[in-house]
């Protein structure tokens, strides 16, 4: 039976843990989504934007230099989501959701953003489809990601800094939910990952599944068989889920999600929710969370701003429990080596988030048997990160 069930549960995870005020809106959203998912015109429009605007299909690139560098015994492919418009997979989801909002007759779009990537992708889709857009962003993040604030404003969005709590992504989500509770009749909330209450984890997964569907077709053409290993970074988990999902039934395809170990798993400075977190409820879902003994939510950390979240999509929690996917973590330092490795060997500067996946491949390459086909999902490009990386490397060389 396909998951989630009708309550939005993936085994014990998922669900709709939200204030009653939002429940009717979630029912309405689910009904609209299930309708338009099968609607020919909607599918055609989405496909049109994917092809002509986002730049799909994105290439599946055989990374020969990287393969050589890692021992020459592997067939490494990169799924190039970094080549999409706005530079990351986030746009697949925002075009889908904003188009749905338009069909539902909603005039006002709200979103949360951490690093600003999802905010930019939402502002882009809202500009394209002519809807008002408000983006909530932790006050700390608005400072750290100043350029993305400006980008969103250029795109006509209003960025609202959030001063509550830790002033980062989780608080921006709280504030977006508060806005939605208040303006639910007129407003559509575009969540940026496979998180939140049902139907979001399912819907975002479906919109992002274009990544895995293309990969499947492309690898069959290139190699005549399915890949052995898929590797993707996991923040909320949307690029990984979209990449994995079309392979879920193919038991021989191993799926690995790479979380951010930040300053180390033995510190409080990481975002390795599945690796060391525990089940709980936040932002409308039952899932793994970073939390303390009494159930207060902890802050997250990663050098990659897009991985900096103390929760994770409930379907990943389910995959962890059933063993369908494996979840691991690499730290800031390893991620930076991944960043440099791909830049130097392939001339591709990856997003720091995606660099975690590259780094993990580098860690395990030696142990993989000869001829293994590995596909890494390159979720985004690193232009947004070059200034931060320069800063980081300078600080390290000063130490």
């Amino acid at each position: 039976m396909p998951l989630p069930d009708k309550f939005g549960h993936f085994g014990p995870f998922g669900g709709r843990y939200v204030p009653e005020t939002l429940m009717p809106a979630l029912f309405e959203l689910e009904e609209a989504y299930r309708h338009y998912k099968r609607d020919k015109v909607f599918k055609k429009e989405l496909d049109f934007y994917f092809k002509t605007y986002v730049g799909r299909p994105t290439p599946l690139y055989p990374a020969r230099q990287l393969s050589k560098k890692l021992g020459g015994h592997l067939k490494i492919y990169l799924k190039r989501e970094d080549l999409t418009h706005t530079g990351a997979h986030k746009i697949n989801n925002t075009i889908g959701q904003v188009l749905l909002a338009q069909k539902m007759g909603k005039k006002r779009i709200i979103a949360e953003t951490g690093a600003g990537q999802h905010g930019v992708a939402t502002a882009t889709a809202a500009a394209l489809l002519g809807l008002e857009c408000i983006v909530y962003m932790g006050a700390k993040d608005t400072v750290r990601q100043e350029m993305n604030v400006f980008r969103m404003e250029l795109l006509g969005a209003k960025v609202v800094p959030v001063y509550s709590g830790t002033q980062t992504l989780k608080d921006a989500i709280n504030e977006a939910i508060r806005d939605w509770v208040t303006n639910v009749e007129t407003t559509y909330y575009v969540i940026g990952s496979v998180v939140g209450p049902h139907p979001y984890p399912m819907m975002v997964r479906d919109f992002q599944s274009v990544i895995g569907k293309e990969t499947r077709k492309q690898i069959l053409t290139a190699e005549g068989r399915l890949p052995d290993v898929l590797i993707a970074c996991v923040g909320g988990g949307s690029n990984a889920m979209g990449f994995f999902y079309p392979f879920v039934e193919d038991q021989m395809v191993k799926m690995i999600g790479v979380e951010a170990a930040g300053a180390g798993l033995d510190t409080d400075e990481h975002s390795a929710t599945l690796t060391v977190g525990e089940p709980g409820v936040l932002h409308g879902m039952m899932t793994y969370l970073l939390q303390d003994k009494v159930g207060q939510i902890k802050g997250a950390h990663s050098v990659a701003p897009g991985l900096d979240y103390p929760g994770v999509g409930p379907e990943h929690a389910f995959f962890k429990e059933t063993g369908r996917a494996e979840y691991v973590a690499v730290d800031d330092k390893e991620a930076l080596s991944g960043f440099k490795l791909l830049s130097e060997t392939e001339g591709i500067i990856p997003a720091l988030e995606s660099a975690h996946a590259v780094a993990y491949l580098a860690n395990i390459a030696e142990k993989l048997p000869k001829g293994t086909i590995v596909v890494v999902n390159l979720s985004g490009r690193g232009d947004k990160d070059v200034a931060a990386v320069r800063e980081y490397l300078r600080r390290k060389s000063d130490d």
Partner: protein
Amino acid sequence: MTRGAQAVEKAIREANKRGEAALIPFIEGGDPDFAATEDLLWALAEAGADVIELGFPFSDPLADGPIIQEAAQRALRHQPTIDQFLDLIARLRQEGFKVPVVIMGYLNPFFRYGLEAFAQNSHQSGLDGAIIPDLPLEEAKPWLKIARKHRLASILLAAPTTPSERLERIARSSTGFLYYVSITGITGTKEALPEELALKLDLAREVSPVPVAVGFGISKPEQVKALSPHADAIVVGSAIVKLIAEHEGEKSKLPEIVGRFVKELKEATRR
């Protein structure tokens, strides 16, 4: 002495029999500190509170406006635990504190504690029930079953967006009372209460087997007076929490200041 759902419902019905709406003041536990909470609970009882709502602070209170968010932040400095809350209630009960107390908190801390253990220990300590704003009907089944077993009030919420057929189902599953959220919004909104509120409350009371309390955005005695004929109980939260925040520096005077305000509210409940 009855406790639990029965005590909560009885306290409200008794107020109604006296020709009043019941008054349910809210304070955040541990704000500004735990000793103050104990004094404030006595002050609320003396001022005529019929039931008390005690907030358990959470790091991510997504149904709350700035006033209660900030109260939660102040309380979290003291790293509160559920056992600490239950111990306080147990002590108060031994000292003869009679007013029913329900805890209001987001699900995760209770889930982490274990719902069964929480219900059992609540029952033993004399806590009468819980309001969990991020646990809607569809997800509430396990909790409702556990709460029933330990005779605790499991208070569910209905909102202006709730269709009437759904409201009826929610009311039938709720024990102690049904919490009707007055506005489409978060706690502490300054906006005027919706015009159709009285009518909606009348309709809710027609279908609800348990008393109907109204809350969110009610801050003045005049509002209490206007709503009293239409609600079995009235919850006032942010207005009290704001008063506590404004007088954080004068802890010894807090019970008196808060008590005076709550007394005024209580007087306004007379129909």
